[in-house]
Structures are given as C-alpha cells and as structure tokens.
C-alpha cells in the first residue's frame, strides 16, 4: 500500500514538473512574438528604457502606416505574394508533370533523369550561388521577379519530384487502365484522373513549397540587388533584413517592429487555421 501511494505521489510531482517544462517552453516561443507586436505600438523610449514586459502607454497605430508606406513593407509584401504565387504554381505544375512520367512510364533514360533530379537534393544552394548569379545575369534576368520565380521553381523541383514520384507510384493502376480503354489520351488521363487522385500528396507538397519559398532569403538577396530601382523589387524577407540594419540610424524602432508584425501575423493566422495540414505538409519530407 505504502509503495503504491508513494508511487502515485511521485507521479504527481512528475506531472507538475512536466507542466512546468512545457509551459516554460511555450512562453519562450510566444514571448518574443508578443514583445514584437507590442513594441510596434510603443515609442523608442518605451522600447529601450521601459519595462519590456509592459503594455504600451498608448496604442499608436502610426508605426504600421509608416512601415507599410515609408519603409516600403507594403510593396515588399505584395512582391513576395506575387513571386511565391507564381513560383509555387510553376513548381507544382512542372514538378507534378515530371514526377508523373518518371513514376508511371517506362522509357529510355527514365532512371538517369530521376537520378539527376534527386541528386539536386544533396547539393547546398550555396555551391552554385556564384555561377547561378552569372547565369541569371547573362539571361538578363538579374533584378527581375521572372528570374527569381524561375530559379525558385528550379530549386524546388528536386524535392517536389522526389516526393510526388513516390506518391504517383502508390496510385492504383486499375483506374488508369479503365480510362485508357475509354480512349482517354495520356494528357487527359493525367489532368482528369491522376491529378485528382494525387490530391493529398499535392496539398502536402504545395504547403511545403509555399512556406519554403516565402521564407527564402539567400536567393532574393543575391538575385535582386539593391539600388534606387532595384529596391522596389525586393521581397519581404530581404526588405526587413535591410530595415533592421537601417532602423538603428533612422531611430524608428516602432516602424521596424510594425514591419516585423506585418510579416509574422499573416503567417500566424494562416498557421492557426491550417495547422494540421501545415504540420503534416512540412513533416512529410522527414517521414518519407
């Protein structure tokens, strides 16, 4: 009897300790984000000398306006949306097409092409950074969104093809055969039969690509140089990195925190709504 109740007591202590550990980590995650959001409403004095755990004395929304227009965050945000929309769309269309024929058609060179795509997974983007810069420059695409979109697609293909090829292989043959007997062409079979069947895999990898491309930093910072004209083309990540170094000189810290809030709040909202899909989409690669 004694051992049993002692056992139960140690369980109780353990339970409390687990809660403490989990709560501490949760606070470590949330607090810097809340601080960022609150600091957008504070003034410089409050941010630097005031209590970092306090609420702003006045809820001044002006910093958001300054960040959006004067610091160009609005422009960067829209640029990011445009680039990620087209690059993810392109990645999914081209990736699905390549993955599909590689997974389901026997032809000479199939293995070689598949291997070429998958080999891309092993090379860090930094290996080819300088030559990539030169290639983009030679094509006259340096400093353009078109160039960046094409590069995003190319660098997203290895994982997309690898993942979707495995997925297309698992789809049943019977449906495809039935459609072929009905006289469907290869192209129609792909768009009307196989794509809908592959929907779960396509959703996972779309989420994976959207988040990966939205968060890209080294590619835009290398391929969209600054300058008076170039800066208009910047994406959100590089724009904010640049504002953060400038914030010290211009002494408009609330605007920097407003810019950060503008960048993270949409992500947090989207994540809260789609957290299940996002979690499985992002971990899909590791589970494979």
């Amino acid at each position: 009897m004694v051992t049993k109740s002692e056992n139960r007591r140690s369980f109780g202590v353990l339970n409390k300790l687990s809660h403490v550990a989990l709560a501490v980590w949760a606070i470590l995650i949330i607090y810097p984000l809340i601080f960022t959001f609150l600091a957008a409403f504070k003034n410089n004095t409050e941010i630097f000398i005031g209590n970092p755990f306090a609420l702003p004395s006045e809820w001044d929304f002006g910093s958001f306006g300054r960040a959006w227009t004067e610091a160009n965050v609005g422009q960067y945000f829209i640029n990011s949306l445009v680039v990620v929309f087209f690059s993810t769309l392109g990645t999914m269309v081209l990736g699905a097409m390549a993955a599909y024929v590689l997974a389901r058609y026997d032809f000479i060179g199939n293995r070689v092409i598949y291997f070429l795509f998958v080999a891309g997974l092993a090379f860090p983007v930094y290996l080819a950074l300088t030559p990539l810069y030169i290639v983009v420059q030679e094509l006259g695409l340096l400093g353009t969104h078109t160039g960046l979109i094409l590069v995003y697609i190319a660098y997203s293909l290895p994982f997309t093809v690898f993942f979707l090829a495995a997925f297309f292989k698992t789809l049943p043959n019977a449906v495809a055969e039935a459609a072929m007997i009905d006289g469907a062409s290869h192209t129609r079979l792909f768009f009307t039969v196989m794509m809908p069947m592959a929907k779960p895999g396509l959703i996972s990898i779309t989420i994976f690509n959207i988040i990966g491309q939205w968060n890209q930093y080294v590619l835009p910072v290398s391929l969209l140089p600054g300058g008076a004209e170039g800066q208009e083309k910047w994406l959100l990540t590089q724009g904010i990195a640049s504002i953060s170094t400038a914030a010290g000189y211009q002494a408009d810290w609330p605007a920097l925190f407003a810019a950060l809030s503008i960048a993270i709040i949409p992500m947090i909202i989207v994540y809260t709504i789609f957290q299940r899909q996002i979690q499985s989409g992002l971990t899909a690669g590791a589970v494979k």
Partner: protein
Amino acid sequence: MRQGKYPFVIGFLIAPLALYAMFVLRPIAAAVQVSMTNWSGLSPNFDFVGLENFQKLIDDDKVWLAAKHHVFLLVTLPVITIALALFFAFLLNMGGGTRGGTMTGVWGSKFYRVVFFLPQVLAVVIVGVIFGRVYAPDGSGILNRFLELFGVDAVQWMADWGLWSILGVLVWQAVGFYVVLFAAGMSSIPAEIYEAAVMDGANRITIFFRVTIPLLMETVKVAWVYLGILAMDAFALVMVLSIDEGGPDGATTVLPVQIYKSGIRESDYGYASALGVALAVFTIIFAVLSLRGGKRDAVEH
C-alpha cells in the same frame, strides 16, 4: 497506345528538365569549373589556375573558423534539439500517466503542440531580426532585462557568446518540428507494448528510455541528418544577427556567409566557387557518414 507515349513523355519532361538544367545543373557544373580559375567577374578574361583557389582556401583563417563553427553546430544543434524534442514529445504523448492501462498525454497537449511548431512557419530572417532585440547587448535587450531581475549584469551576447546565441535561435526554431515528428512516431508505437511495460511495473522514466527511444531510433536518425544540414547553413541568422555579418573578427562566420561575401559582394567568382565546392563536399561527407551509420544500426535492430 504505345505510339503516343514518347511525344507525351517528352512533352511533360522538357520544361521542368530545361529549367532544372539551366538553373541548377549548369551552375553546379560551372562552380566546379570556375573554382579552378581566377575569374573576378569584372573582366571577361580569366585563366585556369588549377588548385590555387583551394590552396588559398586552406590558408584562409576565416575558412578554418567557419569550418570549426560548422563542427560545433553539427554536434550541439542535433544533440540539444533532439533531446528537448524527445522530452517534450514524450510529455505530450504520455506525460499524463496511465489511464486504464493506456498512456495519455498531459492536459493541454494539443495547445502545446500548436505553439511549439509555430516558429517553423516563420522566416529565419524575421526570427533573426526579432532575436536581435532579445540579445541586445545593453540594458534594452530582453534577455538582459530578464537577467537583471536576478541581479545578473548585462551580457554582451553577440560579442562574447555569438555562436551560442545563434545556436539558441536555431534550437528555438527547430525543436517544435521534431516534437511533432517524434510525437507522430510515438503514437504509432502499439499500445500493447506500453501496456506490457506498465504491467511489468515500469515507471514512465524507464518506459521513456527502454521502450520509446529504442523504437524511435529510425526517426531520430532522420532528424540527425536534417539538423546536420541545418548546421551547414545558418546563413540568414549570421547575416542579420551577428556583429559585422560573421564577426566580431570572424567569431560567428560560416561558409555560406564567406561564399556570399566573396562571390556576390566582391565578385571573386573563382574563390567563391572553390568555397562552394568545399561546402558541398563537407555536406555530402556528413550525409553519407550519417546514412551509412544509420543503415548498419538498422540491420542490427
């Protein structure tokens, strides 16, 4: 039907393959070539210089510092992240003790899982800028203000503890991903195994070390490779967070930063490409070694 197969296959492959060859394969091949030239980018002329760039690389103190930092991150980042993630995942899945013979998660485990994973969807650069305020050296830094509550003097985080501070951000962002990954692995372990262990009188700590971890070994190895690749990067954090982009005096520099600086900023294409080749070789050796280690253990398992 055989008739139409090749036009279809070619039609579907041509665009992705062309794009991939143009922007990935060609630059990779060029990187190896250019690494043996003295091309500065400013002039159209350049000479083949053999392994001169690699000689320069070996003599470059910054490169050795960067390599040292990668080794440091390669050890600390996976160990700390995996340990924390395993611990949290276990608490979330089984911290609630046994109820009717089955293990249950602690109260609120759904909420924790959502919060822990959150940093994963934020851009590394943005996270870096936020942590710039956390690590601010004066009294305005969040961390220093917190330490002040305990009477600890302000710490010069990025000047004195640069690499550790960057490691802290990497861990902060990565843990949640592996919590979700491990939690999924743990929930796929059959309940009977736990029931049997509980019947044998095992407590939760014994179960964690004797049952859960051995059964999760495969997932842990995947995590190790992923975190190792992350340790080879760290570009965005070092660029926005450290003093002088990799400083002070190279104290936080990593190879991608050196590549970016010498290639994009200084147009020393030959040398930057040599650095790129070195990083790729480093990464591939790591991946091959960990995957090979993984395979041997899998056979024993």
